[in-house]
């Protein structure tokens, strides 16, 4: 070890002095001196460490000998304990470097190869606005590279940042928040930008999804992770089963289903509430069920509204409120609660979305404004089974219901198709470690309708995806 260090230093020195010839002699002397100094300082330090190690070893031996003489009295045993403790504290070298306080850092890399029969940029029919419905691109495409930093700030707070570097070379702050550690009484407050605690899938980052793409209902209504800038309060009840209540208020940075909106207003524009109940069923199973509700007003002046059939090609505005309510459940099973060899997971969610307000059709031309009331819903159910270590298969069914859309006089300008999008998905993934995943997925996509004929456009989609996790990857939620 010592020799390697010295050799490395000499080598580094040799490399740096391959410069101009004139100053060489003086430089060489200086370098020789430096090396000599380095060598003696290293040797001194190593001697100190070796002495420390010897001292620690001998007291460990002493402690072992002492504990072997176990017939000794309890008082004597305590002395031994003190000795062994001394050994421990001696052999622990305190961290000297500032890097010891660096946040835990992890990086997610992911990419997809997608094959579609039809153009994936065509939106699903009958659900508007549905801003978040962009699927992985055709051909090879890089997904978002996620950078995650987290650390305790002090004894009272913990801070986290999750930034996504997109394949379009932009950086998005997905989450950046501080969370309390010391409130106690089951209370936690989170402030900043964060994924809402609504439902089950909403707060799960893309790299932890069980399928390449999010569920249709998640995409159409919350697309694909609804987050806000605001404050979240959570409370866990003091019970042997998990009963958690959460409330969030925020600026309404995103209008769910539309994406980012430009708000210039005081106060909170968005409120979310959720409750979760969970526990174990024997040692093999565990469950969590939840209910959630989100209400939000549009920004002053309304939000852009892509029409239901994607046909009119004009700019529309919606002003009013949106309410989303949902229920979710997840059940996990593993033999004896040991997921290593086999495990099973089932998850399902149902959401309903209501629009209530005014729709201005073709703001640049006709500017026909009338009331809009819409109630649409959707659900998915998915099951994933790990049948041998590292290999999982999964299936998912998605369905959206067009529900009722009352356009009033705007019915003359817009059509709300009576069409329920559906999708079947099958996936197989290989997880050689907790840090890597390669996945193959097939979708039978029935989310689009030929408006002219009323026929469903069936699409076969195939994806090959990798997800890699580098660094200190933290725990995943249930």
């Amino acid at each position: 070890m010592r020799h390697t260090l010295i050799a490395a230093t000499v080598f580094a020195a040799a490399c740096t002095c391959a410069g101009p010839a004139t100053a060489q002699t003086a430089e060489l002397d200086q370098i020789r001196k430096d090396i000599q100094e380095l060598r003696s300082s290293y040797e001194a330090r190593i001697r100190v460490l070796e002495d420390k190690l010897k001292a620690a070893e001998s007291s460990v031996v002493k402690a072992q000998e002492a504990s072997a003489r176990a017939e000794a009295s309890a008082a004597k045993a305590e002395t031994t304990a003190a000795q062994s403790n001394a050994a421990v504290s001696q052999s622990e070298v305190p961290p000297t470097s500032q890097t010891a306080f660096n946040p835990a850092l992890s990086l997610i890399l992911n990419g997809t190869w997608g094959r579609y029969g039809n153009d994936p940029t065509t939106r699903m029919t009958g659900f508007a606005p549905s801003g978040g419905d962009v699927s992985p691109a055709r051909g090879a495409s890089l997904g978002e590279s996620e950078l995650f930093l987290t650390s305790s700030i002090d004894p009272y707070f913990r801070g986290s940042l999750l930034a996504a570097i997109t394949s379009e070379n932009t950086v998005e702050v997905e989450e950046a928040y501080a969370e309390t550690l010391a409130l106690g009484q089951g209370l936690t407050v989170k402030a900043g930008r964060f994924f809402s605690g609504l439902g089950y899938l909403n707060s799960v980052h893309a790299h932890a999804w069980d399928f390449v793409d999010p569920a249709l209902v998640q995409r159409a209504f919350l697309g694909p992770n609804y987050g806000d800038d605001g404050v979240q309060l959570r409370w866990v009840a003091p019970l042997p089963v998990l009963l958690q209540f959460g409330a969030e208020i925020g600026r309404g940075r995103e209008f769910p289903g539309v994406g980012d909106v430009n708000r210039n207003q005081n106060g909170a524009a968005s409120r979310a509430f959720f409750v979760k109940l969970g526990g174990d069923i024997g040692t093999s199973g565990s469950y969590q069920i939840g209910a959630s509700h989100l209400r939000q007003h549009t920004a002053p002046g309304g939000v852009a509204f892509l029409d239901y059939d994607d046909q009119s090609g004009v700019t529309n505005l919606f002003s009013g409120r949106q309410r989303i309510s949902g229920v979710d459940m997840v059940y996990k099973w593993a033999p004896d609660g040991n997921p290593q060899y086999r495990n099973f997971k089932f998850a399902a969610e149902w959401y309903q979305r209501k629009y209530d307000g005014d729709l201005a059709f073709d703001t640049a031309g006709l500017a026909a404004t009338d009331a809009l009331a819409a109630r649409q819903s959707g659900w998915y159910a998915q099951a994933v089974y790990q049948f041998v270590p590292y290999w999982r298969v999964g299936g998912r069914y998605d369905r959206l219901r067009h529900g009722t859309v009352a356009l009033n006089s705007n019915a003359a300008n817009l059509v709300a198709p009576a069409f329920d999008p559906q999708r079947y998905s099958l996936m197989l993934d290989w997880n050689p470690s907790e840090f890597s995943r390669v996945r193959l997925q097939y979708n039978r996509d029935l989310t689009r309708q030929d408006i002219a004929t009323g026929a469903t456009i069936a699409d076969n989609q195939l994806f090959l995806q990798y997800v890699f996790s580098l660094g200190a990857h933290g725990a995943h939620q249930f």
Partner: protein
Amino acid sequence: MKLSTNIAIGATLLLCAILAQATIQVFACSPEWGSLVTELAGPRASTFVATTALQDVHRIQARPSLIARARTADLVVCTGADLEIGWMPLVRTQAGNARIQAGKPGFFEAASVVPRIEVPTSVDRALGDVHPQGNPHIQFGPRQIRLAAEELTRRLVRIDPAGETEYRTRLADFTRRWDAATEHWAKMGAPLKGVTVIQHHKNFSYLFDFLGMRQVASLEPKPGVEPTSAHLRELVENQKSDPVKLIIRASYQSPAPSEWLAQRINVPAIMLPATVGGSEGATDLFTLFDDSIRRMLDALKL
């Protein structure tokens, strides 16, 4: 079936006894710490044990029930050294319990106060699931348990000062019995000295260290990576140059790889309880050692 009935009855009786007197709530990450808390706090503590000996503590999920139990805990006792890193940090941040945050007396990681073996000189994920702070399976180190018991008692006293006399008495009693037992195990396991073993994962390194046994290899090609046929074939080859006498797996590991190898190299393959509750005999920390050493002796007909 009979075992589980007994366990159920025992647990119910224990629960009733505990509820009658319990003053502090303890969340133990694994059964060995639950057992240690029972030794050191007796009826003063009501203990919830988060995992069983049939589960791999590396791979537990942050289940809702764990968050609920951590919410009311006065003291969390875990192994540390990153063993529970996949779930405990999340359980603790979700629980909203200030008493169990880092730096509080209510958060105790036993590995932080004991010497650890197999501390890697370099860490890289290419080497598998390595623990930068050394082997975390410290429950099989008699000295480690003893040191953990002392620090645990200090924590108990800080959290529940009213019970100080009882905690001190219990610790003195425990260390006296533990030292005697340690001496007994050293004698009992003396025939195992120098015996060469292969273990599935490095669950028992502290026990081998204590008994002077020599581990030649692991069934896992790298820590946390399931045995591969290539690696097993390599172990069969190595048997000629560096023969082993015993193949050992823990109670939560599949018997298939060790049995496959046992047939090829014609040595016994046995299961040892990964922790308390991993076998019928291992009902507490003391019997965990008794049973584990007995199983090895029996397998080798010593």
